[in-house]
């Protein structure tokens, strides 16, 4: 999850990374109380990239121009995203612009320092000159100097830029981040450095131990949050449950990302069109219980069944924590409730549910599920082809 520029800069300020005087603008009229002397820059606070080229950044010389520009920017979507906030910032004269970042390198399994002497508006140029330093052992400032030296810094600029990299690294570690980026880092004619734009990506797994970051994030994250239930009020979807809408007519419910992807691939390969899929989560969450798993099955069934175009729901669950019978009973329970709703006038046509099951308890499961008109199939490929054929022809 990315922070907005003004939030990133607030973190920079706390860490002692130099940023320009700036002010958050929630409404064009806030510009009348601006404390920064003109000329100022107004910047659209969106997560999408390319806001400069899209017209989301404007230089203004006085209040009248500023209010007009702000109104303009508030109504300008950047890649479909409208800003809720603008940032008004002082202007800065730069001699050169650098690119700096700290990011996690998955392959090296270490943080990586990135730096380019060609920062600013051209990503291609920046990437061309990009230098890397892997932080192999615990960080020490010499890693930062190593980067600046590779970037071609000499004289006092070595310490000035290293100091920024060091502070970026400390921020990265202190807040468990995925990315800290300054682009551009302005270098003034006198050799002073200034973070002119900044990007911070927080790590979702680590957010639980950084309440200060949690407060900065929007309450409802993309792909998560509330979803309308099957003819019922909005359901709260826990973040462990990954639900994605597509535009076909087969709903998929699986456990584990790999199994979900494989099942999705098989449906497409068999000529089917998924309406959506839900991954109720793998088996490695420390707080998992059979009860929780059963609740997620019911919630997942509700999620994949909620859209009108869904004709078939395919359930593919494998695992050891929850007994086959427990899962089956959860499905049956949901199905019974759903049938009741259909019977009592819910306009939705009855969705056909296919459950793929394998194991010692299959006969018992078949019995339970037959009673609620759910088909049980042992073989995965057969379950797929049955689902696709029912969705196509049924």
């Amino acid at each position, binding site marked *: 999850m990315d922070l907005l520029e003004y939030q990133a800069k607030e973190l920079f300020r706390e860490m002692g990374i130099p940023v320009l005087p700036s002010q958050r603008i929630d409404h064009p009229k806030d510009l009348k109380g601006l404390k920064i002397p003109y000329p100022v820059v107004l910047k659209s606070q969106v997560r999408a*990239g390319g806001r400069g080229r899209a017209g989301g950044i404007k230089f203004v010389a006085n209040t009248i121009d500023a209010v007009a520009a702000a109104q303009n920017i508030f109504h300008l979507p950047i890649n479909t995203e409208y800003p809720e906030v603008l940032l008004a910032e002082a202007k800065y004269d730069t001699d050169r612009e650098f690119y700096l*970042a700290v*990011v*996690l*390198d*998955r*392959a*090296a*399994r*270490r*943080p*990586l320092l*990135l730096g380019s002497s060609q920062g600013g508006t051209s*990503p*291609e140029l*920046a990437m061309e000159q990009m230098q890397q330093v892997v932080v192999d*052992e615990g960080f020490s400032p010499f890693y930062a100097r190593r980067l600046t030296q590779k970037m071609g810094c000499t004289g006092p600029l070595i310490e000035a830029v290293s100091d920024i990299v060091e502070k970026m690294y400390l921020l990265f*570690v202190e807040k*468990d981040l*995925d*990315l800290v*980026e300054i*682009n551009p880092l302005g270098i003034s004619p006198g050799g002073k450095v200034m973070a002119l734009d900044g990007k911070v990506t927080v*790590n*979702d*797994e*680590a957010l*639980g131990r950084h309440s200060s970051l949690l407060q900065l994030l929007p309450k409802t994250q993309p792909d998560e949050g509330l979803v309308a239930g099957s003819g019922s009020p909005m359901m709260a979807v826990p973040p*462990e449950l*990954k639900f*994605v809408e*597509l535009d076909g007519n087969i709903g998929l419910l699986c*456990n*584990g*990302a*790999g*199994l*979900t*992807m*494989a099942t*999705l*691939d*098989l449906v*497409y*390969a068999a000529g089917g069109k998924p309406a959506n899929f839900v991954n109720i989560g*793998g*088996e*490695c*969450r*420390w*707080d*998992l*219980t059979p009860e929780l798993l059963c609740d997620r099955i019911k919630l997942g069934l509700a999620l994949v069944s909620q859209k009108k175009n869904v004709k078939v729901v395919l359930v593919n*669950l*494998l*695992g*050891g*924590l929850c007994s086959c019978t427990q899962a089956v009973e959860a499905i049956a329970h949901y199905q019974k409730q759903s049938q009741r709703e259909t019977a009592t006038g819910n306009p939705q046509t009855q969705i056909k549910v296919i459950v793929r099951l394998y194991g010692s308890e299959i006969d018992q499961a078949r019995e339970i599920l037959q009673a609620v008109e759910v088909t049980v199939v042992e073989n*995965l*490929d057969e379950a797929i082809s049955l689902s696709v054929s029912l969705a196509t022809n049924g």
Partner: protein
Amino acid sequence: MNFTPDTKVLIQGITEVIGSTHAALMKAYGTNVVAGISPGCGGQTVQEIPVFDLVEQALRKVGSVDVTVIFVKPYAVLDAALEAIAAGIRQIIIITEGMPPLDMVKLVRKAEATDTLVLGPNTPGIIVPSKVLLGIHKSDFYTPGSVGLISRSGTLTYEIALQLTQAKLGQSIAVGIGSDAILGSSFAQWLQILDEDDHTEAIVLVGEIGGSSEEEAAQYIAAAIDKPVVAYVAGHHAPKGKRLGHAGDIMAARLSTGKTFNIIGADPDTAQSKIQAFKSAKIPVASSPAEIPGLVKKVLKQKKK
């Protein structure tokens, strides 16, 4: 690599629901679970396994152990693993999903310095069918044999084991390397271990989208692995940019230059790139789990020639 019914196993986080459930399943499978750890619960027993407050306390009582399986909550994993290393344990399996990546960076540094093998996090662990279960694999899908299975997935691994079992292809071992972004051990490390394992004749490698570990594995197989390998990659049709559930399934951070940062490959996050890498390394790629047994039989036949 020598996991047998004699392997002495510790379970950290044994009083968590998931820990106690799988402790029972592991024991039932014949695994020699000698002790469990749960600070504050010392003196209790779980599934007749004695519970201790500290790892070193347990080892004083039961002697040294060969491997520890960790079920503690995500923010406590690093500490549990470091405690195990400090107590001299050199094989660690982390079942728990959702460790902060920078905790793993610390653990990896320590593991490298102490020559400790770390599997996971977010892994079903290891199963040697009919011998020993070190983790949460759905053991009834497995049967003994000579196919080594290495996977980045959890439940998908069980599916593929089932398909192999149904095709009369037993397994020498199945290893989940884990699904999180930063892993304790790589495909390459386990490929090497299985290449040296006398009971393994062919290897099935199960990958998925995200990261570049399949590309690295393909290069490693071409360079260093003698036994035949069959690959499968899930996620051809995964919608771009959506989180499917694994921390590892999307690139962690996107730079403002519009690039994701990666070491290998032009666009290694896609299934296409991974399949291309395997094909370039002359590794047969199954297009579905059901195709895997056939390809395995084919490479085994070729090998015998």
